[in-house]
Protein backbone atom coordinates (compact mmCIF):
# COMPACT_ATOMS: atom_id res chain seq x y z
CA UNK A 1 0.00 0.00 0.00
CA UNK A 2 1.37 3.39 -0.90
CA UNK A 3 0.43 4.72 2.42
CA UNK A 4 3.53 6.09 3.94
CA UNK A 5 2.50 7.92 7.04
CA UNK A 6 5.56 10.07 7.38
CA UNK A 7 4.32 12.37 4.78
CA UNK A 8 4.84 15.99 4.32
CA UNK A 9 1.69 17.88 5.14
CA UNK A 10 0.43 20.66 3.02
CA UNK A 11 -2.27 22.65 4.73
CA UNK A 12 -5.00 23.51 2.26
CA UNK A 13 -5.07 27.18 1.47
CA UNK A 14 -8.72 27.58 2.35
CA UNK A 15 -8.31 25.98 5.71
CA UNK A 16 -5.15 27.89 6.35
CA UNK A 17 -6.89 31.13 5.59
CA UNK A 18 -9.54 30.31 8.07
CA UNK A 19 -6.93 29.69 10.65
CA UNK A 20 -4.28 32.18 10.09
CA UNK A 21 -5.29 34.92 7.76
CA UNK A 22 -3.38 35.75 4.63
CA UNK A 23 0.01 36.05 6.22
CA UNK A 24 -0.44 32.95 8.25
CA UNK A 25 -1.57 31.06 5.21
CA UNK A 26 1.58 31.92 3.41
CA UNK A 27 3.55 30.71 6.37
CA UNK A 28 1.60 27.50 6.66
CA UNK A 29 1.97 26.64 3.04
CA UNK A 30 5.57 27.46 3.16
CA UNK A 31 6.11 25.24 6.14
CA UNK A 32 4.21 22.49 4.41
CA UNK A 33 7.33 21.51 2.56
CA UNK A 34 9.39 21.40 5.70
CA UNK A 35 10.01 18.33 7.83
CA UNK A 36 11.66 18.09 11.16
CA UNK A 37 13.33 15.02 12.46
CA UNK A 38 12.53 12.95 9.43
CA UNK A 39 13.61 9.38 9.97
CA UNK A 40 16.02 7.84 7.56
CA UNK A 41 14.24 6.31 4.66
CA UNK A 42 11.45 8.79 4.44
CA UNK A 43 10.00 8.82 0.97
CA UNK A 44 9.41 12.53 0.91
CA UNK A 45 6.92 14.21 -1.35
CA UNK A 46 6.36 11.13 -3.43
CA UNK A 47 4.56 9.49 -0.52
CA UNK A 48 2.56 12.60 0.17
CA UNK A 49 1.51 12.82 -3.44
CA UNK A 50 0.22 9.27 -3.31
CA UNK A 51 -2.25 10.11 -0.55
CA UNK A 52 -5.27 12.30 -0.57
CA UNK A 53 -4.69 15.58 1.13
CA UNK A 54 -5.04 15.24 4.84
CA UNK A 55 -7.56 17.43 6.61
CA UNK A 56 -6.30 20.50 8.37
CA UNK A 57 -6.48 20.91 12.11
CA UNK A 58 -9.39 22.88 13.53
CA UNK A 59 -11.28 22.61 10.28
CA UNK A 60 -14.17 21.09 12.17
CA UNK A 61 -14.98 22.68 15.48
CA UNK A 62 -16.74 20.36 17.90
CA UNK A 63 -20.31 21.24 18.73
CA UNK A 64 -19.71 20.47 22.36
CA UNK A 65 -18.70 23.70 24.04
CA UNK A 66 -16.10 22.16 26.30
CA UNK A 67 -14.41 20.40 23.43
CA UNK A 68 -14.58 23.52 21.34
CA UNK A 69 -12.75 25.40 24.07
CA UNK A 70 -9.98 22.84 23.99
CA UNK A 71 -9.79 23.15 20.23
CA UNK A 72 -9.58 26.90 20.52
CA UNK A 73 -6.86 26.63 23.14
CA UNK A 74 -4.94 24.27 20.88
CA UNK A 75 -5.32 26.62 17.96
CA UNK A 76 -4.09 29.58 19.95
CA UNK A 77 -1.23 27.79 21.61
CA UNK A 78 2.14 28.44 20.17
CA UNK A 79 5.12 26.22 19.83
CA UNK A 80 5.21 22.56 19.18
CA UNK A 81 2.25 20.59 20.36
CA UNK A 82 0.18 17.61 19.57
CA UNK A 83 -3.40 18.19 18.53
CA UNK A 84 -5.88 15.37 18.36
CA UNK A 85 -9.38 15.62 16.95
CA UNK A 86 -11.40 12.81 18.45
CA UNK A 87 -14.16 13.62 16.03
CA UNK A 88 -11.98 13.36 12.96
CA UNK A 89 -9.83 10.63 14.48
CA UNK A 90 -6.68 12.38 13.44
CA UNK A 91 -3.56 13.72 15.06
CA UNK A 92 -1.44 16.68 14.12
CA UNK A 93 2.03 17.50 15.33
CA UNK A 94 2.26 21.22 15.00
CA UNK A 95 4.79 23.95 15.43
CA UNK A 96 3.02 27.25 15.70
CA UNK A 97 0.65 27.28 12.81
CA UNK A 98 2.54 24.73 10.84
CA UNK A 99 1.65 21.10 10.63
CA UNK A 100 4.75 19.02 10.82
CA UNK A 101 3.08 15.69 10.73
CA UNK A 102 -0.42 14.31 10.68
CA UNK A 103 -1.72 10.82 10.98
CA UNK A 104 -5.01 8.98 11.26
CA UNK A 105 -5.73 7.58 14.67
CA UNK A 106 -8.04 5.15 16.39
CA UNK A 107 -9.77 6.65 19.39
CA UNK A 108 -11.97 5.41 22.19
CA UNK A 109 -15.04 3.50 21.13
CA UNK A 110 -17.24 5.27 23.61
CA UNK A 111 -18.79 2.22 25.19
CA UNK A 112 -19.24 1.49 28.84
CA UNK A 113 -18.51 -1.63 30.76
CA UNK A 114 -19.96 -2.50 34.12
CA UNK A 115 -19.05 -5.28 36.42
CA UNK A 116 -19.10 -5.81 40.13
CA UNK A 117 -20.18 -2.28 40.84
CA UNK A 118 -17.44 -0.82 38.71
CA UNK A 119 -17.90 1.06 35.47
CA UNK A 120 -15.38 1.69 32.75
CA UNK A 121 -15.84 4.32 30.09
CA UNK A 122 -14.01 3.50 26.90
CA UNK A 123 -13.90 7.02 25.59
CA UNK A 124 -10.81 9.05 24.94
CA UNK A 125 -11.15 12.01 27.27
CA UNK A 126 -10.87 15.46 25.82
CA UNK A 127 -8.68 18.03 27.47
CA UNK A 128 -5.06 19.04 27.68
CA UNK A 129 -2.47 16.52 28.68
CA UNK A 130 1.26 16.20 28.64
CA UNK A 131 3.57 13.58 27.23
CA UNK A 132 4.85 12.09 30.42
CA UNK A 133 7.06 9.36 29.15
CA UNK A 134 8.07 7.54 26.03
CA UNK A 135 9.07 3.94 25.59
CA UNK A 136 10.24 1.60 22.92
CA UNK A 137 8.86 -1.92 22.68
CA UNK A 138 6.27 -1.24 25.33
CA UNK A 139 4.69 -4.03 27.30
CA UNK A 140 0.97 -4.01 27.84
CA UNK A 141 -0.30 -4.92 31.26
CA UNK A 142 -3.88 -6.01 30.68
CA UNK A 143 -6.04 -4.11 33.12
CA UNK A 144 -9.02 -5.50 34.93
CA UNK A 145 -11.43 -4.28 32.31
CA UNK A 146 -9.73 -6.43 29.71
CA UNK A 147 -10.82 -9.57 31.52
CA UNK A 148 -14.23 -8.25 32.34
CA UNK A 149 -14.83 -7.33 28.73
CA UNK A 150 -13.56 -10.64 27.42
CA UNK A 151 -15.65 -12.54 29.91
CA UNK A 152 -18.76 -10.65 28.94
CA UNK A 153 -18.12 -10.92 25.23
CA UNK A 154 -17.43 -14.63 25.41
CA UNK A 155 -19.79 -15.52 28.23
CA UNK A 156 -17.11 -16.64 30.60
CA UNK A 157 -17.23 -16.55 34.33
CA UNK A 158 -14.39 -14.63 35.94
CA UNK A 159 -12.11 -16.00 38.58
CA UNK A 160 -9.01 -14.37 39.96
CA UNK A 161 -5.97 -16.53 40.44
CA UNK A 162 -4.04 -15.82 43.58
CA UNK A 163 -0.61 -16.86 44.58
CA UNK A 164 -0.65 -19.70 47.03
CA UNK A 165 -4.28 -20.50 46.33
CA UNK A 166 -4.57 -23.16 43.63
CA UNK A 167 -7.76 -23.23 41.64
CA UNK A 168 -9.20 -26.71 41.21
CA UNK A 169 -10.42 -27.60 37.74
CA UNK A 170 -13.18 -29.95 36.73
CA UNK A 171 -10.87 -32.76 35.66
CA UNK A 172 -9.16 -32.84 39.00
CA UNK A 173 -6.14 -30.83 37.95
CA UNK A 174 -5.40 -27.46 39.44
CA UNK A 175 -4.09 -24.09 38.41
CA UNK A 176 -1.24 -22.56 40.33
CA UNK A 177 0.94 -19.51 40.18
CA UNK A 178 4.56 -20.54 40.21
CA UNK A 179 6.90 -17.62 40.02
CA UNK A 180 5.73 -15.51 37.13
CA UNK A 181 4.03 -18.40 35.37
CA UNK A 182 0.60 -19.96 35.51
CA UNK A 183 0.78 -23.74 35.50
CA UNK A 184 -1.72 -26.53 35.36
CA UNK A 185 -0.82 -29.38 37.66
CA UNK A 186 -2.48 -32.56 36.45
CA UNK A 187 -3.64 -35.35 38.70
CA UNK A 188 -0.70 -37.48 37.67
CA UNK A 189 1.64 -34.73 38.77
CA UNK A 190 2.44 -33.53 35.30
CA UNK A 191 2.94 -29.78 35.19
CA UNK A 192 1.85 -27.85 32.14
CA UNK A 193 2.79 -24.23 31.76
CA UNK A 194 0.26 -21.82 30.32
CA UNK A 195 1.95 -19.72 27.66
CA UNK A 196 2.46 -16.18 28.84
CA UNK A 197 0.77 -14.63 25.85
CA UNK A 198 -2.41 -16.64 26.24
CA UNK A 199 -5.50 -16.15 28.28
CA UNK A 200 -6.10 -18.64 31.05
CA UNK A 201 -9.42 -20.19 30.13
CA UNK A 202 -10.65 -23.53 31.37
CA UNK A 203 -14.15 -24.64 30.68
CA UNK A 204 -16.36 -21.62 30.93
CA UNK A 205 -14.13 -19.73 33.29
CA UNK A 206 -11.63 -17.02 32.46
CA UNK A 207 -8.97 -16.85 35.12
CA UNK A 208 -7.41 -13.47 35.75
CA UNK A 209 -3.68 -13.90 36.30
CA UNK A 210 -2.22 -11.89 39.14
CA UNK A 211 -0.14 -8.85 38.33
CA UNK A 212 3.48 -9.70 37.88
CA UNK A 213 2.90 -12.89 35.98
CA UNK A 214 3.90 -13.34 32.38
CA UNK A 215 0.25 -13.40 31.38
CA UNK A 216 -0.06 -9.81 32.55
CA UNK A 217 2.89 -8.60 30.50
CA UNK A 218 1.99 -8.74 26.86
CA UNK A 219 4.47 -7.70 24.23
CA UNK A 220 3.48 -6.35 20.87
CA UNK A 221 -0.04 -5.22 21.64
CA UNK A 222 1.11 -1.62 21.95
CA UNK A 223 3.19 -1.71 18.82
CA UNK A 224 6.80 -0.66 18.89
CA UNK A 225 6.47 2.67 20.70
CA UNK A 226 4.29 4.48 23.13
CA UNK A 227 3.92 7.97 24.51
CA UNK A 228 2.23 8.07 27.88
CA UNK A 229 -0.32 10.77 28.58
CA UNK A 230 -1.12 9.86 32.17
CA UNK A 231 -3.98 8.01 33.81
CA UNK A 232 -3.26 5.00 31.63
CA UNK A 233 -3.91 6.84 28.38
CA UNK A 234 -1.30 6.47 25.72
CA UNK A 235 -0.41 7.14 22.15
CA UNK A 236 0.84 3.83 20.87
CA UNK A 237 1.14 1.57 17.89
CA UNK A 238 -0.87 -1.54 17.34
CA UNK A 239 -0.85 -4.86 15.52
CA UNK A 240 -4.48 -4.15 14.69
CA UNK A 241 -3.75 -1.75 11.89
CA UNK A 242 -7.21 -2.03 10.46
CA UNK A 243 -8.57 -0.29 13.53
CA UNK A 244 -6.79 2.94 12.66
CA UNK A 245 -9.23 5.66 11.79
CA UNK A 246 -12.03 4.08 13.77
CA UNK A 247 -13.48 4.49 17.21
CA UNK A 248 -12.11 1.19 18.39
CA UNK A 249 -9.97 1.61 21.47
CA UNK A 250 -10.55 1.58 25.19
CA UNK A 251 -9.44 5.17 25.47
CA UNK A 252 -5.91 5.14 24.12
CA UNK A 253 -4.98 6.64 20.80
CA UNK A 254 -3.68 4.09 18.38
CA UNK A 255 -1.49 5.07 15.52
CA UNK A 256 0.16 3.29 12.69
CA UNK A 257 3.55 2.03 13.68
CA UNK A 258 5.30 4.45 11.36
CA UNK A 259 3.41 7.38 12.82
CA UNK A 260 4.00 6.50 16.42
CA UNK A 261 7.64 5.98 15.60
CA UNK A 262 7.78 9.46 14.16
CA UNK A 263 6.19 10.86 17.29
CA UNK A 264 8.49 8.85 19.48
CA UNK A 265 11.48 10.32 17.73
CA UNK A 266 10.21 13.89 17.43
CA UNK A 267 7.84 14.68 20.26
CA UNK A 268 9.66 15.36 23.48
CA UNK A 269 8.52 14.43 26.92
CA UNK A 270 6.67 17.41 28.32
CA UNK A 271 4.99 18.31 25.05
CA UNK A 272 1.41 19.47 25.33
CA UNK A 273 -1.31 17.28 23.91
CA UNK A 274 -4.66 18.85 23.09
CA UNK A 275 -7.50 16.41 22.66
CA UNK A 276 -10.82 17.77 21.52
Amino acid at each position, binding site marked *: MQNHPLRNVRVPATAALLLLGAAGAAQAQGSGTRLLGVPVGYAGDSAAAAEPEAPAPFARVPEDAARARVAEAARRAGGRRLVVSLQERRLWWMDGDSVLHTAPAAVGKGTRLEHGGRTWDFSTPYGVRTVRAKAENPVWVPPEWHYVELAQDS*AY*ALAHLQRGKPAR*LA*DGSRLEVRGDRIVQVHRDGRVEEIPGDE*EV*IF*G*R*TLYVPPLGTANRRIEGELGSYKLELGDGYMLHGTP*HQDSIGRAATHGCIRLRDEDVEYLYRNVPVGARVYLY
Partner: protein
Amino acid sequence: MLNRMLPLAVVLTAASLAVAPASAQTTGTGSTATGQTMQQDTTPRQTTTGQTTTQGQTTQGHEGHQMQNQTMQQDTTPRQTTTQGQNPVPTQTMQGQEGQPVQQVQGQTTTGQQNLTSTQTTTGTEGTLGNQTTGTQATTGNQNMATQGTTGTQMDQSRAGMTDTDAGRTRMRVSKDT
Protein backbone atom coordinates in the same frame (compact mmCIF):
# COMPACT_ATOMS: atom_id res chain seq x y z
CA MET B 1 -57.79 -80.01 -38.89
CA LEU B 2 -57.02 -76.77 -40.57
CA ASN B 3 -58.29 -78.24 -43.70
CA ARG B 4 -61.55 -78.90 -42.01
CA MET B 5 -61.69 -75.64 -40.23
CA LEU B 6 -60.88 -73.47 -43.17
CA PRO B 7 -64.02 -74.22 -45.15
CA LEU B 8 -66.08 -73.71 -42.10
CA ALA B 9 -64.40 -70.40 -41.49
CA VAL B 10 -64.99 -69.43 -45.04
CA VAL B 11 -68.62 -70.38 -44.69
CA LEU B 12 -68.88 -68.48 -41.47
CA THR B 13 -67.18 -65.50 -42.95
CA ALA B 14 -69.40 -65.62 -45.95
CA ALA B 15 -72.41 -66.00 -43.78
CA SER B 16 -71.26 -63.12 -41.63
CA LEU B 17 -70.86 -60.92 -44.61
CA ALA B 18 -74.19 -62.05 -46.00
CA VAL B 19 -76.22 -61.66 -42.84
CA ALA B 20 -76.79 -58.07 -41.95
CA PRO B 21 -77.96 -58.10 -38.26
CA ALA B 22 -75.15 -58.43 -35.80
CA SER B 23 -77.28 -60.26 -33.29
CA ALA B 24 -77.97 -62.96 -35.80
CA GLN B 25 -74.27 -63.21 -36.52
CA THR B 26 -73.48 -63.58 -32.86
CA THR B 27 -76.07 -66.21 -32.39
CA GLY B 28 -74.87 -68.04 -35.37
CA THR B 29 -71.33 -67.95 -34.29
CA GLY B 30 -72.08 -69.26 -30.88
CA SER B 31 -74.28 -72.01 -32.05
CA THR B 32 -72.29 -73.17 -34.90
CA ALA B 33 -68.65 -72.98 -33.91
CA THR B 34 -68.56 -72.90 -30.17
CA GLY B 35 -66.75 -76.13 -29.71
CA GLN B 36 -64.17 -75.37 -32.29
CA THR B 37 -63.75 -71.89 -31.08
CA MET B 38 -63.20 -73.11 -27.59
CA GLN B 39 -60.55 -75.43 -28.77
CA GLN B 40 -58.89 -72.66 -30.64
CA ASP B 41 -59.21 -70.37 -27.67
CA THR B 42 -57.76 -72.95 -25.37
CA THR B 43 -54.83 -73.61 -27.51
CA PRO B 44 -53.90 -70.00 -28.14
CA ARG B 45 -54.29 -69.25 -24.46
CA GLN B 46 -51.81 -71.89 -23.66
CA THR B 47 -49.69 -70.76 -26.50
CA THR B 48 -50.07 -67.15 -25.66
CA THR B 49 -49.18 -67.75 -22.08
CA GLY B 50 -46.21 -69.74 -23.08
CA GLN B 51 -45.23 -67.24 -25.66
CA THR B 52 -45.68 -64.43 -23.28
CA THR B 53 -43.28 -66.07 -20.95
CA THR B 54 -40.99 -66.77 -23.81
CA GLN B 55 -41.27 -63.25 -25.06
CA GLY B 56 -40.45 -62.00 -21.68
CA GLN B 57 -37.47 -64.20 -21.63
CA THR B 58 -36.60 -63.29 -25.14
CA THR B 59 -36.81 -59.62 -24.41
CA GLN B 60 -34.48 -59.99 -21.55
CA GLY B 61 -32.23 -62.31 -23.44
CA HIS B 62 -32.26 -61.45 -27.09
CA GLU B 63 -29.16 -63.36 -27.81
CA GLY B 64 -30.44 -66.88 -27.56
CA HIS B 65 -33.29 -69.09 -26.49
CA GLN B 66 -31.02 -71.49 -24.79
CA MET B 67 -29.71 -68.74 -22.67
CA GLN B 68 -33.14 -67.55 -21.78
CA ASN B 69 -33.60 -69.90 -18.94
CA GLN B 70 -30.21 -69.14 -17.62
CA THR B 71 -30.89 -65.52 -18.12
CA MET B 72 -34.08 -65.82 -16.24
CA GLN B 73 -32.36 -67.54 -13.45
CA GLN B 74 -29.69 -64.98 -13.40
CA ASP B 75 -32.23 -62.23 -13.64
CA THR B 76 -34.28 -63.74 -10.95
CA THR B 77 -31.43 -64.26 -8.66
CA PRO B 78 -30.02 -60.79 -8.94
CA ARG B 79 -33.44 -59.31 -8.68
CA GLN B 80 -34.11 -61.15 -5.56
CA THR B 81 -30.65 -60.68 -4.29
CA THR B 82 -30.15 -57.18 -5.43
CA THR B 83 -33.56 -55.82 -5.02
CA GLN B 84 -34.72 -57.70 -2.07
CA GLY B 85 -31.45 -58.62 -0.54
CA GLN B 86 -29.42 -55.55 -1.07
CA ASN B 87 -32.17 -53.16 -0.54
CA PRO B 88 -32.79 -54.27 2.94
CA VAL B 89 -29.12 -54.15 3.59
CA PRO B 90 -28.68 -50.58 2.49
CA THR B 91 -31.91 -49.75 4.14
CA GLN B 92 -30.74 -51.35 7.27
CA THR B 93 -27.37 -49.88 6.77
CA MET B 94 -28.82 -46.50 6.22
CA GLN B 95 -30.96 -46.88 9.18
CA GLY B 96 -28.02 -48.09 11.03
CA GLN B 97 -25.99 -45.19 9.83
CA GLU B 98 -28.74 -42.87 10.60
CA GLY B 99 -29.21 -44.54 13.86
CA GLN B 100 -25.64 -44.09 14.85
CA PRO B 101 -25.62 -40.41 14.25
CA VAL B 102 -28.92 -40.25 15.94
CA GLN B 103 -27.40 -42.00 18.81
CA GLN B 104 -24.50 -39.65 18.60
CA VAL B 105 -26.83 -36.78 18.36
CA GLN B 106 -28.68 -38.17 21.25
CA GLY B 107 -25.40 -38.54 22.92
CA GLN B 108 -24.68 -35.02 21.96
CA THR B 109 -28.12 -34.08 22.94
CA THR B 110 -26.81 -34.05 26.40
CA THR B 111 -24.24 -31.67 25.15
CA GLY B 112 -26.98 -30.00 23.19
CA GLN B 113 -28.83 -29.32 26.31
CA GLN B 114 -25.74 -27.73 27.47
CA ASN B 115 -25.66 -25.90 24.20
CA LEU B 116 -28.93 -24.44 25.21
CA THR B 117 -27.04 -23.12 28.07
CA SER B 118 -24.59 -21.54 25.72
CA THR B 119 -27.47 -20.02 23.83
CA GLN B 120 -28.63 -18.50 26.99
CA THR B 121 -25.14 -17.47 27.57
CA THR B 122 -25.09 -15.65 24.29
CA THR B 123 -28.15 -13.82 25.32
CA GLY B 124 -26.50 -13.09 28.55
CA THR B 125 -23.65 -11.51 26.73
CA GLU B 126 -25.86 -8.78 25.52
CA GLY B 127 -26.70 -7.52 28.89
CA THR B 128 -25.02 -6.62 32.04
CA LEU B 129 -27.20 -9.05 33.83
CA GLY B 130 -25.73 -11.66 31.60
CA ASN B 131 -22.69 -11.67 33.76
CA GLN B 132 -24.54 -13.15 36.59
CA THR B 133 -26.18 -15.67 34.34
CA THR B 134 -22.88 -16.37 32.76
CA GLY B 135 -21.29 -17.09 36.01
CA THR B 136 -23.92 -19.60 36.89
CA GLN B 137 -23.71 -21.28 33.55
CA ALA B 138 -19.99 -21.38 33.63
CA THR B 139 -20.05 -23.01 37.00
CA THR B 140 -22.34 -25.65 35.60
CA GLY B 141 -20.08 -26.05 32.65
CA ASN B 142 -17.13 -26.65 34.83
CA GLN B 143 -18.75 -29.70 36.16
CA ASN B 144 -18.70 -31.32 32.77
CA MET B 145 -15.49 -31.34 30.85
CA ALA B 146 -17.16 -32.56 27.68
CA THR B 147 -19.42 -29.64 27.75
CA GLN B 148 -16.55 -27.35 28.21
CA GLY B 149 -14.82 -28.67 25.17
CA THR B 150 -17.87 -28.60 22.98
CA THR B 151 -18.93 -25.22 24.05
CA GLY B 152 -15.43 -23.98 23.76
CA THR B 153 -15.28 -25.15 20.19
CA GLN B 154 -18.33 -23.18 19.39
CA MET B 155 -16.78 -20.20 20.94
CA ASP B 156 -13.73 -20.72 18.80
CA GLN B 157 -15.73 -20.27 15.66
CA SER B 158 -16.45 -16.73 16.57
CA ARG B 159 -12.96 -15.87 17.61
CA ALA B 160 -9.80 -15.92 15.66
CA GLY B 161 -6.76 -17.46 17.22
CA MET B 162 -8.66 -19.72 19.52
CA THR B 163 -8.21 -23.44 19.69
CA ASP B 164 -9.64 -25.98 21.99
CA THR B 165 -7.79 -28.60 23.89
CA ASP B 166 -9.09 -31.93 25.00
CA ALA B 167 -8.54 -30.91 28.58
CA GLY B 168 -11.23 -28.28 28.42
CA ARG B 169 -8.82 -25.45 28.04
CA THR B 170 -9.50 -22.79 25.47
CA ARG B 171 -6.41 -21.28 23.99
CA MET B 172 -6.64 -17.63 23.09
CA ARG B 173 -3.96 -15.09 22.56
CA VAL B 174 -4.13 -12.06 24.77
CA SER B 175 -5.21 -9.16 22.63
CA LYS B 176 -6.46 -5.68 23.21
CA ASP B 177 -9.01 -6.21 20.50
CA THR B 178 -10.76 -9.12 22.05
